[in-house]
């Protein structure tokens, strides 16, 4: 499971052009529970660089028996 969101409100632009700041809505408890139930890991990315690192780690995990 991979969560993508910062801890602070983020700017969101709607299709009609309206923009507002929204609090993160991520349900980390459920995502962590899914990972734990299936032998997977829960990762949280707060920016693109972190997300890249997470995917590289997942790639390694999947390739290792």
């Amino acid at each position, binding site marked *: 499971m991979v969560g993508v969101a910062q801890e602070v409100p983020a700017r969101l632009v709607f299709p009609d052009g309206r923009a507002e700041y929204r609090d993160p809505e991520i349900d980390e408890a459920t995502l962590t529970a*899914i990972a734990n*139930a299936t*032998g997977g890991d829960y990762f949280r990315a707060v920016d693109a660089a972190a997300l890249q690192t997470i995917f590289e780690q997942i790639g390694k995990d999947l390739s290792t028996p």
Partner: protein
Amino acid sequence: MLVLAIFIVGALLLGSPRTPLSAPEPQLPPEAVPVAATFSNTTPPGSITRPISTTQAIVALQPISQGAPFSAGAIGHREWPANNLPPNAIADEVEAIGQVAQTDIVQGQVIVRDMLAAATSATGVPNGDFGYGIQVDPQGNTTANIKHLKTLRMNWVKFQMPWREVEPDSGRYQWTDWDTLIEAYAAAGLNILLTIADAPHWSRPPEDSIDVDGFPQDAADYAQFVAQVADRYQGRVQAIEVWEEQNIYYSVGGQGRVDPAAYTDLLKQAYTAIKAVNPDMIVVSGGLAPTSAPPPMALDDVAYLRQLYANGAQPYLDAVGAHPSALPTRRMPSTRAATLIPPVVTTITAVSSFAIRWKPTGRSMVENGDEAKAIWPTDFGWAVRRTEDPRFEFAQENTPAEQAEYTLNAFEMGQTWGWVGPMFLGNLDYNLTAPDTGRANFGILNTPTYDALVTRGLGHQAVADLSPVAAGSDVVIVLDISGSMAAEDFAPNRLEATKTVIHNFVDTYQDGNIGYMTFAGQVVSRIQPTTDKELLAGIVDLTKLAWDIGLDSGTAIGDGLSEAIEMLQLSPANRQAVIFITDGTNNAGQVEPLTAAKEAAKLDIRV
């Protein structure tokens, strides 16, 4: 008035650019095609069982290019889930040895009979075999369009080559642009059909109306030209269609000039000249337009075909061209067309209309002992109105969703029937290259039809036949495309940043098949686990937010996970995993996230 409406339909079908290839390249908007929207099959999540019985399949042990022979080392046995073996899979390597590949075959793909072609055909493309094609504007963006054809996994492309553009004065030729175009598409491994009409003014009889297309005064001028094309593009162009819609006045020099005997003469001379320089070139008779308009405007297509046979055309065609569709087919009580189209047509479904338009063509071939030849639908498609032009009022009768469904069904029908050759959907890109014309109504770029063909079309079925090639993990990547993924705490936003990382992962992961799914309030699109990185990366790049493709923007985490598990059900790899990316809370769908997680755990699928 009846006549008039029928002709509008015919004119749309023709769809010829009729403008010089040397015109400035149109400015194309940036690539932006949504991945399948409302058209994914939403399989209800249910009990999931792992395959236990396996059988032996014959698979490609290495990539096999189109036209390459099947050698003993290139194919071999592999264990395969018994309930997932394609019905037409070959049972023994011997069936393939000595034949050549009909299409490009990916490593690990099960060999099915449709992939085999007799080695005696130099082109590897016998005229009776089904093909999956589309018509493309030669003035379009070549690089982008080749990529689209690859994403659609089509193996044929059709261009309309206007004779008058290439030979503007008798004996003076302008090949350069066509050389470049054909070189590019042939190098991409695509089979090419050239439809050659549009006679230069110098060749036309003086009594002709120059406002419309028409035959040359001397058919030998045309024969000489098409033979040059056949010679010049040996091995790169596989088929030539001799004229098109010659049963309607605008293709033959004006009213009263529809003349099957004159066309038969043109066809004979063209066929003979082409075969003299290039015996492998497939010669297709010009696709006849669906019309019931009477002379002097037109002649019914089936009546016309019968007259061709009566005039002795049979030895001078390898396949029969047809333009079997595009009549407005829904009930249309509110439009002008309602009074103009025969009621029988308006009350049947689009797809059965498609069938009845060309089954009589097949019957008249049988009557004439020519049933061994295939019918090539060299132009078919359904219009959706995008431009405000009263002449195309009827096009609004097909919604984008209907265009997608009809198109999928037509390809499937053609493939199933067995007597259909390559089918050419009209068109790929007119909505970009000719946005303010009626032709734009047929273009499928950036439409649900494109998405449906990518995710559910015939090419997609080939993807689903792939088997794993590595001992590692098969993985399905599940991406949330709900509206909150537009948040800009990642640069430029969550969705785009995640797409880039997924693309990188697809490029570098070597240890199993990768599948891909998007979801919001429901599952939106699915690509079955595959080793085709180019296809996958292309589809990842095309992913858009749910609200940008007209879908509700919920977050159905449980449904998404449940369906991802199902996509891994037939994975014969040692291990399976799901990479699930979301920024939200489960607020839609049927399945509780933890219920789906328990199911995954039971199947030993890591998430």
